């Protein structure tokens, strides 16, 4: 029951924010209160959890004749992703405090509803309900980009919607096919996992699921929607897109591919690793060539999500643990960079690296934050990103060392784009040569929290890995070569 409340809370919070919006900042506080309540509820669930993998499970039959039921369950992986969603929700509200001045009610409602739908994705174990939430999260995210974005925002929003909705049909079709193959029709993932399917059937089903997941992960060549959506979205939209929405793709792949199609995943594993390695290199190389700081960060997201794909496809213990950590690490580093770039854009009205610089002299807090998160981008040891990437690469060494060397070459590309960002923003002559307001408290505290999270996970990864271990063990289906 508590799990359903976890989904309903932001949905209702969004409604309230929508209707009470008006003078003052009420809707902002409602949104913050909603996300804070979610965090409290989450902590309560985890604290009162029984022994074993599942913190909580509910199952209500809904349409028994078609085998549709409300199946929700939460383990360490879902719990950490939900905590990040709620936390980034609060951060998004704070980041858009001065940016969003029109239709503020709808904006905050969209934020809440995006989070509600993603939490549905993180909890559902009924494939039809999963697919419902999967499609549902596109609508409020579309609104966020199309209404409050910059530049050609309608175009970017449409591109985002079309790519993801079309790919979602792959998921839906495969879910229907899978449900009809069971003895009695069911969408329950646990029951479907018991089925003995031939490898070729598994591969086809996996391709259907993967279409949706890879587009959401934005692994090249399926990434084309992401750079525009991230760049043109308002700051809060970029934060949620990078920190939460991309993670649904990673989560789906991590959770359902090994669970439902173990042999199928083993069969396509080399192709998955190759696709991920090529994508990581490609995303990194394109990022090196960007002049728009936000677009640069968007392309680094592509590179990092490709590394997650590599980890999941490799399917060995190290790689899976790395992929799980990388998901979470990327949430912090990318969101923080989007927040910082958004705050800078509000002050200077440009994101062009050639027109900025010298923050180190005019805004030291900005500069320090950029330095830290650029270190995370280039996976410096001590940051969470290093833990993730290093574990993925160690895992891939166990599978195939050629792929592993390819994966390591992304480390070199990452240092080029990260230092380019640093050189363009932090070093050099102060540009614009005018006093610049340093981070205010609404920007400072989120950045501080995300820095701490990055460093704590980086220096003390077992805190996170212990939480994720059951989910990682469950995803571990491939035998060691």
């Amino acid at each position, binding site marked *: 029951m508590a799990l359903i409340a976890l989904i309903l809370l932001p949905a209702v919070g969004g409604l309230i924010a929508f209707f009470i919006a008006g003078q003052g900042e009420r809707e902002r506080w409602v949104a913050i209160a909603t996300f804070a309540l979610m965090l409290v509820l989450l902590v309560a669930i985890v604290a009162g959890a029984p022994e074993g993998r599942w913190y909580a499970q509910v199952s209500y039959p809904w349409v028994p004749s078609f085998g549709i039921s409300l199946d929700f369950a939460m383990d360490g992986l879902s719990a950490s992703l939900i905590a990040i969603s709620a936390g980034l929700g609060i951060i998004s509200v704070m980041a858009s405090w001065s940016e969003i001045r029109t239709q503020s009610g709808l904006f905050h409602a969209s934020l809440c509803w995006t989070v509600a739908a993603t939490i549905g994705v993180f909890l559902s174990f009924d494939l039809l309900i999963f697919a419902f939430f999967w499609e549902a999260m596109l609508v409020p995210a579309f609104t966020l980009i199309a209404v409050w974005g910059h530049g050609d925002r309608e175009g970017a929003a449409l591109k985002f919607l079309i790519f993801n909705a079309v790919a979602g049909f792959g998921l839906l079709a495969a879910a229907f096919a899978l449900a009809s193959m069971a003895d009695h029709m069911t969408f329950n993932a646990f029951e479907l996992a018991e089925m003995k399917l031939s490898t070729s059937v598994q591969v086809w089903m996996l391709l259907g699921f993967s279409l949706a997941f890879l587009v959401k992960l934005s692994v090249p060549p399926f990434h084309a929607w992401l*750079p525009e959506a991230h760049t043109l979205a308002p700051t809060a939209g970029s934060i949620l897109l990078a920190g939460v929405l991309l993670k649904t793709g990673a989560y789906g792949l991590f959770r359902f591919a090994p669970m439902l199609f173990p042999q199928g995943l083993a069969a396509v594993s080399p192709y998955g690793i190759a696709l991920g390695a090529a994508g990581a290199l490609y995303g990194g190389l394109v990022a090196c*060539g960007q002049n728009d700081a936000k677009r640069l960060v968007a392309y680094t997201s592509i590179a990092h999500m490709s590394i997650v794909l590599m980890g999941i496809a490799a399917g060995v213990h190290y790689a899976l643990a790395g992929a799980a950590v990388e998901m979470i690490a990327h949430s912090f580093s990318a969101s923080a960079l989007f927040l910082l770039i958004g705050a800078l854009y509000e002050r200077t009205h440009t994101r062009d690296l050639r027109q900025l610089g010298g923050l180190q002299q005019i805004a030291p807090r900005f500069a320090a934050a950029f330095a830290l998160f650029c270190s995370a981008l280039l996976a410096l*040891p001590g940051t969470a990103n290093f833990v993730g990437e290093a574990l993925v690469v160690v895992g891939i060494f166990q599978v195939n060392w050629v792929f592993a060397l390819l994966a390591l070459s992304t480390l070199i590309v990452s240092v*080029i784009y990260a*230092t380019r960002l640093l050189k363009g923003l932090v070093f050099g002559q102060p540009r614009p040569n005018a006093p610049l307001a340093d981070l205010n408290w609404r920007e400072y505290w989120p950045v501080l929290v995300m820095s701490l999270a990055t460093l704590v996970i980086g220096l003390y990864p*077992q805190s996170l890995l212990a939480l994720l*271990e059951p989910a*990682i063990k469950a995803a571990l289906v491939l035998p060691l070569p």
Partner: protein
Amino acid sequence: MASLLPFVPVPALIGFLVLSLMPVALSRTVVIALGVGAAVLPAILFAPVAVSCLEGGCVAGAAVPILSIDVGVFVAQIAMSLDPLSMVTGGTVALVAALVLIYSGAYMASEPLPDLRRYFALMNLFLAGMLAVVFAADVILLFLGWETIGLCSFMLIAFYTKLPKAVSAGRKALITTRVADAFLLAGLMMLFLSAGTTRLDGMLAAVPAMDPWRLAPIAGLIALGALGKSAQFPFHTWLPSAMAGPTPVSALLHSATMVAAGVILLARLAPLFAAAPEISAMVAMLGILTAAAGALIALIQTDVKKLLAFSTMSQIGFMVLALGLGAPAVALAHFAIHAAFKSLLFLSAGVMSHASGGSTAIEALRGARYRQPWAFWSFAIGAASLAGLPVITAGWYSKEAVLAAVWSSGPCGVPLWLLAATAAMLTGAYAFRVVFVAGSQSADLAAPPWGGAAVMVPLGVLTFVAVVGGLSVGALIGFTGGAPEHIPLLPTLLGAAAPILGVVLARQLVRHPRELERVAHRLRHVRAFRIEILYYYYFVRRFRTIATVLGNADGTEAAAQAAALRRESIDAPGLAADDPLGRAFGGEAAQPDFIARATDGQTPVVRLVSGDPVGRILIVVARVFVGSFVARFSPDQIDRGWMGFAGSFGHAWEQARRLQTGRVRDHSLWIALGCAALLLYAWGTSWR
């Protein structure tokens, strides 16, 4: 006292945290006191550890476990070494760092307060990272420290952030060493997977049982990583540019510590390399190549810091040579002595240039002997030690040990020895070239004296070590488990004569600057260096064509982007300029303001080969590859493909729309065709 070991790096780390994070304005005195204190404390903490070790408390390979963490996937064992190797390296690092930081308290005192604070914070973080590298007995602590010093090096080289040259130099250092780090990480990961432990001693214990086909790539990858950090050919290009940082940074990072990290790593993993002889041979080759080429290029530098940078590269080449020949103890002895005299050289050069109006050009130092006598004499003593003047300097003892190890290293020993002795002679020449210039008379004597106890004490201590440290070389080699080689009298005498010959050569070169110019001219026309021009014309022209094509296809934006990338993707000073020949050979040194200062009124030594032509080839190749890839991809062709695909729907729709003519005869035609199709289908099924 061994229990103090884990706390040695802690004061430096605390110093960094306090200086960088304390949200309180600190006064200048407090900042300097904190920064210097945090760097001196590790040396004080280290002293009792070293004493207990000297009393017999440690053996080779001994390590103290610090933490054992079950990460779930594996058990991470963090440990610190307490063996002679870590005592020698740790003691050197702690001592040199403490002295350099004391010196910088005076040298940097005129910087603005925020910059001063940033300087000390970064130096302290660097020291903590370096101590972690030195004491690490497991790969996790090792790599953590390794990358920390890389990042700090970037930030410190780019310390004068307003200078584009400094920022580019910092980026170049970080990117180059990162390429090497990727190799290192790969090697360490493979070693970890083969041995199943993160402890270095455990890994080395697993080496004898390993398949040689597996061992060679591991050793090769680790060697490449170490050589990159140590600025050995072909990774060396970042080190000369790194001189854009403040002088104390060069004195600490780019002489005694960071570039020495590779040497320390190779020495620590010596058993691994002993088991992979072909990799050791490669290491030795790269070492001697760097030692000789570095000495040659140092000879024709016009900037004293650049000269010292190439000298560092060359001296570390000697250490790498010894490591490749299986004599880690000798390499470590040379490391300790080199750390002392090289930081002495940088620090005293800093004082001399301070008194010469801040210029680091060699010509600008003319007359320094009369302006700053004690700084000049410390520099001269450091130079004597660097040259290895026999018997009276420490450098001779350690270099002689290296030469002896080379002589007795087997069939290739004699030719290698000849090369190494030539490099030793060139070392004498370039070191004393500066001494003779700085020692000569100059009209300009009116410079304010500068310096105080904070400058005198470090110079005094280092001078002392650079002279009498030689007495300890034999003991050092024995302590770290080696035995000095005894070689015939003739090579010993020749080895001792080489630096003296070098000094004579230097005297001649300074008296006849045209000779030096002729040497530079010759070098400029060595065929190998010409390859660079071919690369330039071939690749850069081609690159411009690509950029133009892209530009026409995609509007001016892509062309501008490509042009910006050509300049920025990997920084190669001068290559994007319009005058490729002059710039390619002159490099940074040929920039007009520098020439003006260096050749002010004197016989001009114009356009020397100071741009490190050998290394430039690599940069051009890397730049062209990365640059052309990025230029090709930056408009994101896949995205365009998708948009074209989406556009094709529009066309299809246009076509489909034409069917809707609204005319009855067209509609009836479609109905008739549909009926025909259905009849055809029915006919097909009726055959069953």
